[in-house]
């Protein structure tokens, strides 16, 4: 483990050059020392600056898991794998997470891939053995119930099987009972496949400004979808009012550039779809993500899934 001087040195390097990749080592060192708030800030800033690097998302996922934010961890690992489908650490991390959440089929697929990258990893081998001992996944991809070992977990949660070794704080953190993760058809995950990375967010709001689908994570990892949706839906109401008086037809797009973020909105059925991205993302790109999100929302509403 790195000592305090090494961490201070890396902090100085990062302060002198915020674009440096030393944030990867610094974030991991802080995570291992249990300085999770600092590690989170370093990882978050790293993802903002290096959104195309899978290692940055992997670091963010590991810190999120240690903080107990498993939704965010899952989203970050999924972003890492979207950028690099064969990323071993992300395969392993997400595999353990899905295993812990009872999604054995997906967990097995990821852990098999992780094992191929590192055949000597005993923790992966043990987890795979445990999955197979449980009889593999059900047809729906979720185990019929919690793994039959250890004490009965609280209702609505699962516990990681005791026989799975946990080689890092990340997987140790996964041992705590947590709520089930959303299924792939969860409304909060509707836009995952149209967003370029975890720094973007998309929401589908109804005519009252209530969130229908999507999620919005604040810098601290909390889901702020309801707050952000309620605030920004008021802007679209104002746009509709203005259009009625200006005789230029119905509004089709609304963009707001602010100091920290850019937001683009468009009508969708009775509600609106909005996409938010960090300010560094060009407005034209945000607009294109919005167009994809609108189409995704339309298909989701039509299919009901």
């Amino acid at each position, binding site marked *: 483990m790195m000592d305090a001087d090494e961490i201070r040195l890396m902090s100085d390097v990062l302060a002198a050059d915020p674009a440096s990749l030393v944030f990867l080592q610094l974030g991991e060192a802080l995570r291992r020392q249990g300085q999770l708030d600092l590690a989170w800030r370093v990882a978050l800033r790293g993802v903002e600056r290096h959104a195309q690097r899978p290692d940055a998302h992997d670091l963010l996922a590991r810190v999120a898991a240690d903080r107990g934010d498993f939704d965010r961890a899952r989203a970050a690992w999924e972003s890492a794998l979207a950028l690099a489908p064969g990323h071993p650490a992300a395969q392993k991390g997400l595999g353990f997470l899905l295993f812990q959440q009872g999604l054995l089929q997906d967990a097995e697929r990821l852990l098999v891939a992780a094992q191929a990258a590192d055949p000597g990893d005993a923790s992966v081998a043990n987890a795979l053995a445990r999955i197979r001992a449980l009889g593999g996944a059900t047809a729906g991809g979720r185990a019929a119930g919690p793994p039959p070992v250890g004490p009965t977990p609280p209702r609505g949660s699962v516990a990681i099987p005791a026989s799975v070794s946990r080689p890092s704080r990340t997987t140790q953190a996964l041992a705590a009972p947590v709520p089930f993760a959303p299924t792939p058809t969860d409304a909060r995950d509707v836009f995952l496949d149209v967003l370029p990375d975890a720094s973007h967010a998309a929401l589908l709001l109804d005519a009252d400004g209530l969130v229908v689908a999507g999620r919005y994570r604040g810098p601290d990892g909390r889901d702020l979808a309801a*707050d952000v949706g309620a605030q920004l839906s008021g802007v679209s109401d104002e746009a509709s009012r203005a259009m009625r008086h*200006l005789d230029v037809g119905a509004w089709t797009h609304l963009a*707001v550039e602010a100091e*920290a973020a850019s937001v683009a909105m468009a009508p969708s059925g009775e509600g609106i779809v909005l996409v938010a991205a960090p300010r560094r993302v060009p407005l034209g790109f945000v607009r294109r993500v919005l167009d994809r999100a609108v189409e995704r929302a339309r298909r989701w509403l039509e299919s009901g899934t």
Partner: protein
Amino acid sequence: MSSPYGGMLAGLIRHRGVKGCLVVGERDGLIVDSTVQFGVNAQTFAALTASLFRKARRAAQAAGFGDATFVQLEAERGRVCAVGRGDLVLVVVAEPRVNLGLVRVDMLKAAERLS
């Protein structure tokens, strides 16, 4: 009497597709200065766009995004853009074919002269 914004507005109205430019009070929606083509209802655009910008600014702050710097609204038959500084809003009314990128850059530069 000429206003200090005449040169700024004259520069913006020269963009192809721009039908009007206005400097508007954000709080009251009243026109401070404007250059508009015939047929543009300046008073209505001023009042409604100031209200929209005010709403967007408050919403962005409430959502944690910081102060709104540029707002763009597209409709079937036109576009409205707004930038703010202090209690003034610079508004551009344009046709759909306008080069939005160019207008945006010039508006952000012009906004620095609003006060």
